[in-house]
């Protein structure tokens, strides 16, 4: 049996045991997201505009991860909107840094390994860098957005007469804890993924100045920093949008809360 299949089955069983219905949904959304990435890569390989495909894929991924698992609720809408706005802001930034630092494609150190393949494949790798970085951070910003908006929703439910400004501030306060732990998750994931790379750079006996100017190191560092920047940026954006959306509703009544609970349970 294949390692990947066994691990996937273990994950599914654990998710189902611990998360019950929501666990099954979470697992299905992982599969769906994989399918979306799969289709996106195939489409890019067929010479469709990689940036357009990436943006569409990201919108779909956020939709699946947010609405499918959490159901239709103002907090989910707020998280969805903030994810899209943050993506738009980040997009321009990543576009700039990706073009300027020229971190696309493969580094000189990898040439030996890839010299077997034809590299003049007519796909603009600078655009691929942007897709890669955005795909790498989409999961993290969705996670941050929904954590903040659902905590703010809790604050709002326990204290319905709260002002918009107070709600915004308490959103910022909550998210400071989230910021620390989410960036930590990213750092370890990246460092874990790059241990082989660190070893490799050590093996090559590069000097410090060679390392910080090399394509291979720069592209990794830039992706880590862009991901963390995304997680940081989405905090004020989500706090703002959630406080706006939650308080833009009609003054809360018991009726309203029950309704949202029903739709929550139905998983709509």
């Amino acid at each position, binding site marked *: 049996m294949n390692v990947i299949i066994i*691990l996937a089955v273990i994950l599914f069983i654990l998710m189902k045991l611990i998360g019950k219905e929501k666990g099954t949904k979470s697992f299905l959304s992982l599969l769906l997201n994989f399918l979306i990435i799969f289709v996106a890569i195939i489409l890019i390989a067929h010479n469709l505009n990689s940036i357009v495909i990436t943006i569409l894929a990201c919108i779909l991924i956020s939709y699946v991860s947010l609405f499918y698992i959490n159901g239709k609720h103002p907090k989910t809408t707020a998280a969805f909107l903030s994810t899209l706005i943050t993506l738009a802001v980040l997009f321009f930034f990543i576009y700039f840094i990706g073009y300027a630092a020229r971190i696309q*494609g493969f580094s000189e150190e990898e040439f030996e390994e890839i010299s077997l393949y034809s590299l003049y494949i007519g*796909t603009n790798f600078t655009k691929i860098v942007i897709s890669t970085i955005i795909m790498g951070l989409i999961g993290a910003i969705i996670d941050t957005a929904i954590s903040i908006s*659902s905590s703010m929703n809790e604050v709002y439910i326990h204290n319905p007469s709260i002002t918009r400004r107070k709600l915004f501030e308490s959103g910022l306060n909550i998210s400071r804890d989230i910021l620390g732990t*989410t960036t930590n998750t990213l750092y370890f994931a990246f460092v874990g993924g790059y241990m082989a790379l660190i070893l490799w750079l050590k093996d090559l006996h590069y000097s410090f100045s060679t390392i910080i*100017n090399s394509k291979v190191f720069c592209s990794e560092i830039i992706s880590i*920093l862009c991901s963390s920047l995304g997680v940081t940026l989405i905090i004020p954006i989500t706090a703002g949008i959630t406080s706006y959306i939650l308080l833009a509703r009609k003054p809360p009544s018991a009726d309203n809360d029950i309704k949202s609970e029903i739709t929550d349970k139905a998983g709509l």
Partner: protein
Amino acid sequence: MKKSLYILLGICCLFLLVFVNNNYNFYKETIVKITAVKLIKEETATDYYGNKDILYTQLLTGKILNGTLKSKSIELRNQYSYSGAADNQYKKGDALFISLDDNTKATLTGTIKGLKRDSYIVLMAVLFTVFIIAVGKKKGLFSLLSLTFNVILFSLVMDLYLRGINLLLVCSIVVIVFTVFSLILVGGYNQKTFTAIISTLSGTFLTLIIAYIVMKLTNEKGVRYEEMQFLTHPPHEIFMAEILVGCLGAVMDVCITISSSIYELCEKKPDISRKALMDSGMEIGKDIMGTMTNVLFFAYVSGAIPMLLVYLKNGFQTGYSFNMNLSLELIRALTGSIGIVLAIPLSLYTSVFMQHRHLKKREQVS
């Protein structure tokens, strides 16, 4: 006190930005600033698989910025392609590392070695520092320290490994030390931190054991180490260490979230029953499970996109391309996700157990 710290940090950032754009004399390699660019050749190329690309040749004129030939003018040639997978287009204003050719002609010529990227790295780092501190305040500063420690620590780990010490052993020690220190630093020295430490470590190592058993039982079928071909070390050991480190952050995240909310609930409602506590912790766990696993999934899988495209465009079959390039990434993402899910009941039981013992003790005293 606090204000002066931020001002100091700001000055450091500014200084770094100015320095990195004027540090030419610190480099031994010759650096050239491009002053003019001329496109001299453009041709279309079609490869064996029918992919169309455009190859360009550009003539760059630049000024030498350091060394004995400082401020002399130089001419460079650069070939690049539209796809740019293994080459770069240079523009006016770029600073390039070059090696000088033996020059007997009137105009100096050289060979391009690479772009000077340090200014972009520093710009990114400064922007990141400013944002994370502006939004996160003290927590942002901690996150920054954590990143720096992370990089330094694992660089040291690799040094130890190269001296012949067992990698998994060193990583395990580093993981324990890092968890203890960072959790105490963030959460303070108290029972809550203690429970988070216990559940993080047990979750992380349990995940590693599961991964190890699965790999052993299947004889590593479907694990394609070709991606790590460039290494002159056995990939198996390094991959296990990567799994261990990769899931630590995620497991820690879950444990902190769950233990903080359990303690928060206990504080708000001291008479809360054990069952209500468990139910409410489980509810939080279910909520974070889905999106947390997505974080790891995307962080890992995205890195394989460029190589996947090369495979697909080189006429390899779709299944083969994905199998070759995603196997390690998927295993990392799956083990990390298993860690996340395991961490939910682990941290829940530990915090409820500790909290209960604590309450009982208090009752006995009173």
